[in-house]
């Protein structure tokens, strides 16, 4: 009998505690700096081009082979405005395949790719699975508009 009364007392005591619900989407929890959303590419605001040079390092390291990269000669290098000889030409990342393992970020030599640690890295619903394959413009969009503070491990 005592056990039943103890159980009832426990539920009574939890009734007066503050509820732990966060009422998403009116209230959004603050996510920590290292949060691993889906990867995005970073934009170099000083030179006005992506950091990515198209070196294929992330493409080779990706366990699920969700990245496709091509590189081209950098027109800004020819003009003398940038140090990068080659620059990324096309970049596709399939968010449907990505397992957010962070390996592409670790192997990148140019700190060009980072995991999206904002809410936009989590709210990615689409109606069609093909829409989850993002191209270069879409991947650079958030960094171009300075809407994120990327964290890249040392």
């Amino acid at each position, binding site marked *: *009998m005592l056990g*039943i009364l103890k159980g*009832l007392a426990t*539920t009574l005591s939890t*009734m007066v*505690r*503050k*509820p732990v*619900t966060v*009422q998403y989407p009116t209230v959004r929890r603050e996510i920590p700096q290292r949060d691993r959303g889906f990867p995005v590419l970073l934009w170099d605001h000083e030179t006005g081009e992506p950091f990515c040079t198209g070196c294929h390092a992330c493409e080779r390291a990706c366990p699920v082979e969700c990245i496709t990269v091509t590189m081209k000669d950098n027109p800004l290098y020819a003009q003398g405005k940038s140090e990068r000889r080659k620059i990324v030409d096309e970049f596709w990342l399939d968010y449907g395949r990505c397992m957010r393992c962070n390996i592409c970020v670790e192997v990148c030599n140019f700190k060009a790719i980072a995991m999206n640690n904002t809410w936009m890295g989590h709210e990615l619903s689409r109606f069609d699975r093909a829409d989850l394959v993002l191209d270069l413009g879409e991947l650079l969009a958030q960094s171009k508009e300075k809407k994120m503070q990327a964290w890249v491990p040392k």
Partner: protein
Amino acid sequence: MDHLDEFLENPWVNGILGLLAVLVLIILVVLALIYIERKFLARIQMRLGPMRTGPYGLLQSLADAIKLLAKEDLRPARADRWVFELAPYAVFVPGFLAFVAIPFTRNWAVSFLELGLFYVVAVTGLSFVGLLMAGWASDNKYALLGGMRAAAQLISYEIPLVLALVAVSMVAGTLNLREMVEAQGRVPLVVWQPLAFFIFMAAALSELERQPFDIPTAESEVVGGPYIEYSGIRWSMFFLTSYANLFLYSLLGAAVFLGGWDWFLGRDAGPWLQALWMAGKTTFLILVFMWARGTFPRLRIDQLMSLCWKVLLPLAFLQIFLSGLVLVHGWPDWALLLTSGAGLLAAAYIVWAAVRPRPLAVREAVASGSVA
């Protein structure tokens, strides 16, 4: 105006208006209870409950009602048509009929029957027929098994429930519910007969099919209940009945055990104050039922049955016997408390003894040559 008064004095008109008022009251209370249950259980679980439909989720019951009304009304092709369609109503009607005899205040009831308690018990005992109808007519062997189990549970727990109420009516000396409430002017009956109160609450939990006795509606068990083939309006009738029964048993408990609208306000308080007081006690019992729901796991069907027949039934008989002894010999009232309290301790002991660990006969050995 005289014509109006005469018109209202007509017993037929009076009765019909009373029934309509009770029907409206039941519906409003059920809508409120759906919301209250969800919020209350959410608070026990440290979460918020419905918050989106209307401010603080107040329109949740309305949203549920609209959703259920708009659902497609399915019927299995080989179901027994009339039995299938009448089963929800067969479950609702006995509960509604029982409200006829319940006094809400001193002067407010549909009818102050002399055999009030007897009538209530007799009528609520009919609700299992609807469950059997639902289980049989669904053309589904699991629904049939579930329906029979539910019916067995309801019928078995009728008996301790009735006996507990009999014990109380012995002490009050009447079956008329209004007089029973008034007999508790000084002290509510729960003080004289705590064992009967405990048996009443346990049996009511089982009649309501709530934790820890909610086998028929258990979702994580293999056999679904008798309701599985129902959807839309028909299912909402079962849902409505379950909350209406909750309201009914809480009213009954508040009237018979907690002193209803009389203790400790007295007979002369105004009718609205009495109604409020009665509502308060009823709400208290409703919350206790909901509290139990959030706390207990569910019992297995055989444990449920053995609890009823081997524990609650003998205790109910014990309570009647001891109360009878005290009343016949004319011993003072506190002897009632003594005997009933002793019975309650006996109940606690039985529950403890049933679950204390005892060595398992066959498989017990500790490994020889234990590793590390």
